[in-house]
């Protein structure tokens, strides 16, 4: 998966979880949880969906890497 | 010989007039059956005909249905136009092999060489406390057999006019006369003559539900329609007249208009003519039905002897009314 595809996937999922927000307006380094007001359950839904669609295993230790759009895309596109 | 007053007559008299007319018009026509001559007929239909036409043409037969129906078949093949009277449908069972395996099938089995222009008249139905062996309504059974035409006159006009058309048919025709109709009185036009035996007729127009029946139960259906009108339900009543072949077109046209059907049949419910009509309605008018087709038939018991039980076993007006209510909802 390319970083651009990963970024798109993240944005698609965020749109479903927080339909009132537009992820396109998010700076790449903005904290997702704060900016979109995601609580722990929202975040869990986000991670679950991400894991399912990307096919990657995501551990709790990886959560910090999903803090922003940029880092999340890099994580998914990486090895 | 006629009812009192101009045009006033009875079903019995109309049938007699029909036989007489046929015999006068065509010398090939003759009547044979048990007690049709000297006795004048079990139901007095042929009263006076022996005196008029003589023993060659009004023939008393021995008490053997198989024999005299067979003789009738033979006479028909031989070029005559016999009217065979089987006293009641109950006794026709003894001639079933003749009717089904000879009369109905000789045309086919002979490769078209022999037709059987036979007319068989039978009295049918219950309601006179003659108990289990003498109360059958088996016209529904006969409609199962290819090669036969089955008709059921329910009105004076049909009693007067069906016989001639039946005699003109080159193939066997069975005429079923409900025992309760012989005394039915009414006015018949002086020129009343032959009628068709192909069509069902709407006896009473309506919009909310179609009541389908024939023969002896027509009167009850009409009474039920009258009662239903009092409840703001306009029932259309169809007299099938010909039971084989059935006039699907008239029935379906009606059901497509009313969207609901009740079939009244004095036969037993299972495997009845009502079941056949219901199946056809389902096949041909399914998308117009707003309720399941109802059937009002006899209770599935040998016909009881005591009057109150017999009445309870037969289709009656309240049951027809209730079925119509169910259908209308």
């Amino acid at each position, binding site marked *: 998966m390319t970083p651009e595809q990963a970024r798109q996937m993240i944005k698609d*999922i965020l749109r*479903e*979880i*927080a*339909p*009132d927000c537009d992820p396109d307006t998010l700076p790449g380094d903005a904290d997702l949880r704060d900016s979109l*007001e995601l*609580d*722990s*359950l929202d975040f*869990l*839904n986000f*991670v*679950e*969906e991400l*894991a*399912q669609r990307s096919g990657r295993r*995501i*551990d*709790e*230790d990886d959560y910090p890497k999903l803090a922003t759009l940029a880092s999340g895309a890099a994580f998914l596109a990486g090895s | 010989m006629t009812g009192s007053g101009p045009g006033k007559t009875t079903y019995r008299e109309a049938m007699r007039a029909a036989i007489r007319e046929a015999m006068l018009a065509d010398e090939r026509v003759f009547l044979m059956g048990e007690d049709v001559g000297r006795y004048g007929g079990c139901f007095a239909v042929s009263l006076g005909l022996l005196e008029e036409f003589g023993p060659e043409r009004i023939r008393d037969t021995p008490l053997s249905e198989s024999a005299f129906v067979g003789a009738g078949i033979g006479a028909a093949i031989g070029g005559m136009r016999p009217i065979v009277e089987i006293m009641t449908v109950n006794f026709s069972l003894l001639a079933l092999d003749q009717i089904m395996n000879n009369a109905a099938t000789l045309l086919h089995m002979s490769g078209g060489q022999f037709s059987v222009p036979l007319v068989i008249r039978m009295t049918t139905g219950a309601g006179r406390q003659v108990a289990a062996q003498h109360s059958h309504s088996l016209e529904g059974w006969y409609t199962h057999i290819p090669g036969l035409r089955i008709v059921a006159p329910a009105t004076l006009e049909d009693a007067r006019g069906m016989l001639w058309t039946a005699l003109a048919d080159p193939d066997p025709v069975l005429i079923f006369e409900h025992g309760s109709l012989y005394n039915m009185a009414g006015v018949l036009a002086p020129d009343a003559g032959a009628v068709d035996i192909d069509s069902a007729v709407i006896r009473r127009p309506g919009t909310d539900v179609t009541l389908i029946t024939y023969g002896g139960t027509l009167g009850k259906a009409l009474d039920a329609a009258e009662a239903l009108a009092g409840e703001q339900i306009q029932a259309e009543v169809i007299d099938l007249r010909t039971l084989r072949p059935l006039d699907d077109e008239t029935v379906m046209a009606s059901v497509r208009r009313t*969207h609901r059907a009740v079939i009244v049949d004095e036969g037993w419910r299972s495997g009845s003519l009502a079941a056949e009509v219901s199946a056809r309605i389902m096949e041909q008018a*399914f*998308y*117009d*039905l*707003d*309720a399941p087709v109802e059937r009002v038939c006899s209770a599935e018991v040998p016909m009881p002897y005591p009057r109150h039980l017999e009445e309870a076993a037969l289709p009656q007006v309240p049951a027809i009314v209730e079925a119509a209510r169910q259908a209308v*909802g």
Partner: protein
Amino acid sequence: MPALGADMEQGTLVEWLVKPGDQIHKGDIIAVVDTDKSAIEVESFHTGTVEALITPVGETVPVGTVLATITETEAEPARPGAAEAGRPGAVEAGRPGAVEAGVPAAMGAPAAAAAGPAAMGAGPAAVEAGRPAAAGAPKGKRAPGKRAPGRARPGRTPAPAGPAAPVHSTPLVRHEAGQLGVDLAAVHGTGRGGTITRADVEYAAASRRVRATPLARRLAAELGVDLGTVTGTGTGGAVREADVRRAAAAGAPAAQQPPAQPPAAAAAAGQAPHAGEAGRPATAGRAGTAGRAESMRQAIARLMARSKREIPHYYVTNTVDMGTAMSWLRERNRRLEVSQRLVPAALLLRATALAARQVPELNGYWGEDHFVPGPAVHLGVAISLRGGGLITPAIHHADDLAPGELMAKLRDLVNRARAGRLRSSEMTDATITVTNLGDQGVESVTGVIYPPQVALVGFGKIVERPWAVNGLLGIRPVVVTTLAADHRATDGYTGGRFLTAIAQLLQRPEEL
């Protein structure tokens, strides 16, 4: 019209989900009602046959108005090992005769006076006419084979479940089936080993036939009427010609797209909150969000004002060492798929539920002048809605659910709350409530009690703080727990006991 909140005065009937002649069981969802806050699914409190629908769709009526009449039948006898064994307050034997489905107002709503002899003061909406206060062994008949959604105790049945409980499905799937009214016994499972998946249940719900005459069906197609939205007046609730014509004249919604694809063909469904189940017309929950947010705000304002006005609050606070709990959680989650992982909130809720069982004086309602213990621990959870607003549905029997089950219920509840698909029993049954869990950053939350409850529990954000551990200075994750309680029902000593209980429970997470 049930009272779906202490402050509710009227509701609008949005949708009838049953027709006259339908057989229903206690717990079946029979209607959707719109309140100021959201669309709520109303469950039946009775088993029987729907006799007549009295209130038409679209009408707004006061709480207590008769919505429909139901002819009651006996509840079915229990199958061996049915999940309700031993639970107090199980369904009692049915009573003959018609019963109104409009449950008398509960939770201290203004119309409480109209509740009649059935209600015990301002007793919970779980009151059914004539049922005395719970406690003790179940009476006579047990619950019917089809368990009321939300009351099910998945995975905890002592004996193998009889034909009533399907074997090859997860608790969440069973919950979904109950919610959609799908009989799992009739569903074909496409999961591994014949397991019934959520998609299977949704497919079954979407392809359910409407009972209609051939003429009605043809007419509906011609007139563009969605048969699923027409109330039928024929035998067994069949839709007939007249019903379709009436619906067409009233401008019924147009027919929907063909039902959902079979699970094998469809792509994996997302986990995000979905706007209603396939095949059902969208409820008013989605429409008019601006107006809804405004009226919800007003409703909350009224409730909070009333609470502060009537309830003498007292407050106690405690800080809890979460070190053991968090490591336990981390270890556990490491071995689990994302969908199975727990968030700390699950442990906090579980501890609260168990503490409520240990200190029952805080689990219940304030009646006219005395405390009424709740029938069980139904834990209310405050859920904030995107776009503003707060809703507090209940997790039933939270003290009987293991953390994993509680987590599943919590996620389901949050998703449905945000989609506007909560059920009436969830809105009315809470016996104690936990406030918005401090995800958003404040260390300590002290709230306002939801009348007629007598306690509100608060949890702040779990933060790292210096802590004394074995005489040495260390850093531990800690959480501030607070209790706001009704001083009429309890004293500070009891409140303190409660918070101490929570703290102790959280030190042994493996026992939660």
